[in-house]
C-alpha cells in the first residue's frame, strides 16, 4: 500500500529539499519504489540536488494539464533504479496547479510506487497546501532555532486542518526531523536542544540530522547525501530516519563525524 509523505516546514532554507532527496534515496536503497515530487513550482531545485537538472523534459504541471503522460515526465535516477523524480515547472506559476489535477497525479503515483514524497515549497500558501493536501504522513523539517520552530507549529496546525485526511476526521502521521543540529552547542545551552523542540511542538521525532559539511558537498555534486557518502554522519542519520518510516524502532542518536585525536594529528581523511 503506497504511502504519500509530504516534507514541509513553513520556513524556507531549513532543508526540505535536501531531506526529500536523502530520505527518498535511503528508502530506495532499502528496496522501496520511491517517487519524489517537486511542488516548488517556479523555484524547482529537487532536480538539481538529485543531479537530474539536465534531464528534465516534462514536469508536474504538464502532467496535471494533460500535456504529458506521467510516465513521460518521471525521471529515473542514474544510481538507484528504484528512485524516480517528478520535477516542478520552472516557468509557470503556482496557479497552474489545480487541486483536482494534483489529486489525480498523486492517485496515479500511488499505483506505481511504495512511497510518494512531496517536497513542499516554503510558506503556508497554496503551493504548500497542495503539497500536503493528499498526504498520509508528514515530515516537518525543523532547525533548532526560534523562527523555524514557530513556523513548524503553524504548519502542524495546517496539517491538522487543511489536508484531505484531516477533513475526513482522520489523523495525519506527523514526524519532526531536526536538521542542522549541533550537539556541542546544544549542550552548552547555546542552541535549543531536542527535548525543548519536541516539548514545544509535542510531535514525535523522526530523526536528528547533525550540522555537517557533507550536506553542502552532496548538493554541490548533485547527489543525495545518503548516496554520496553513506558512512557520513548526516547519511547515517537520514538512513535511520528512513528505517523509522518503514516501521523499525531504533534508538535515537545523533551520529557524529568528529575525528579522533590521532586523525586530527595526522589529518587523516575518511575514504
Amino acid at each position, binding site marked *: 500500500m503506497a504511502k504519500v509523505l509530504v516534507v514541509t516546514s513553513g520556513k524556507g532554507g531549513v532543508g526540505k529539499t535536501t531531506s526529500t532527496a536523502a530520505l527518498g534515496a535511503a528508502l530506495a536503497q532499502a528496496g522501496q519504489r520511491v517517487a519524489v515530487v517537486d511542488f516548488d513550482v517556479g523555484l524547482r531545485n529537487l532536480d538539481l540536488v538529485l543531479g537530474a537538472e539536465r534531464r528534465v523534459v516534462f514536469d508536474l504541471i504538464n502532467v496535471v494539464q494533460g500535456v504529458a503522460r506521467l510516465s513521460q515526465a518521471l525521471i529515473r535516477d542514474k544510481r538507484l533504479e528504484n528512485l524516480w523524480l517528478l520535477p516542478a515547472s520552472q516557468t509557470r506559476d503556482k496557479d497552474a496547479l489545480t487541486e483536482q489535477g494534483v489529486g489525480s497525479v498523486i492517485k496515479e503515483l500511488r499505483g506505481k510506487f511504495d512511497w510518494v514524497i512531496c517536497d513542499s515549497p516554503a510558506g503556508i500558501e497554496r503551493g504548500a497546501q497542495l503539497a500536503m493536501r493528499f498526504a498520509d504522513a508528514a515530515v516537518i523539517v525543523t532547525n533548532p532555532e*526560534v523562527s523555524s520552530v514557530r513556523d513548524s507549529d*503553524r504548519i502542524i496546525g495546517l496539517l491538522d486542518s487543511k489536508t484531505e485526511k484531516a477533513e475526513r476526521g482522520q489523523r495525519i502521521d506527523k514526524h519532526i526531523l531536526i536538521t542542522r543540529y549541533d550537539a556541542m552547542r546544544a549542550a552548552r545551552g*547555546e542552541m*535549543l536542544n531536542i527535548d525543548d523542540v519536541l516539548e*514545544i511542538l509535542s510531535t514525535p521525532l523522526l530523526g536528528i540530522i547533525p550540522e555537517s559539511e557533507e550536506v553542502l558537498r552532496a548538493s554541490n555534486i548533485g547527489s543525495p547525501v545518503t548516496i554520496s557518502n553513506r558512512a557520513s554522519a548526516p547519511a547515517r542519520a537520514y538512513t535511520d530516519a528512513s528505517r523509522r518510516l518503514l516501521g523499525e524502532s531504533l534508538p535515537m542518536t545523533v551520529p557524529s563525524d568528529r575525528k579522533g585525536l590521532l586523525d586530527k594529528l595526522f589529518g587523516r581523511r575518511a575514504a
Partner: protein
Amino acid sequence: MRFLNLFRRRRSAPVARERLQILLSYERAARGQADLMSVLREEILSAISKHVTVERDNVQIRMDRGQAVSTIEIDVAIPHSAGLLLAAGS
C-alpha cells in the same frame, strides 16, 4: 565576576525556549479566530472617535503578551480643539 557574566550570556537557549512557549500558547489559542487584542484595539479606538476626532498618528498602542496575562496600553493625544468640540456638542 566577568567570567560568570560571560558564562551566563552564552546560555541563550533557555530564553529561546521560554519565548517560544509564550508565543505559541498565544498563537495556538488565536488560531482560526480573530485576535482578541486587535479586536479590543479597534473597538476602543472607534469608541474614542465617536466623541473626539483623533489622528491615527496621535494614538500609541502597545501590547505585551504574557503567559498568564496580556496588557494593552492605549495612549491617545486629544487636542484641545477636540475638547471644545465635545463641549459644543453637549
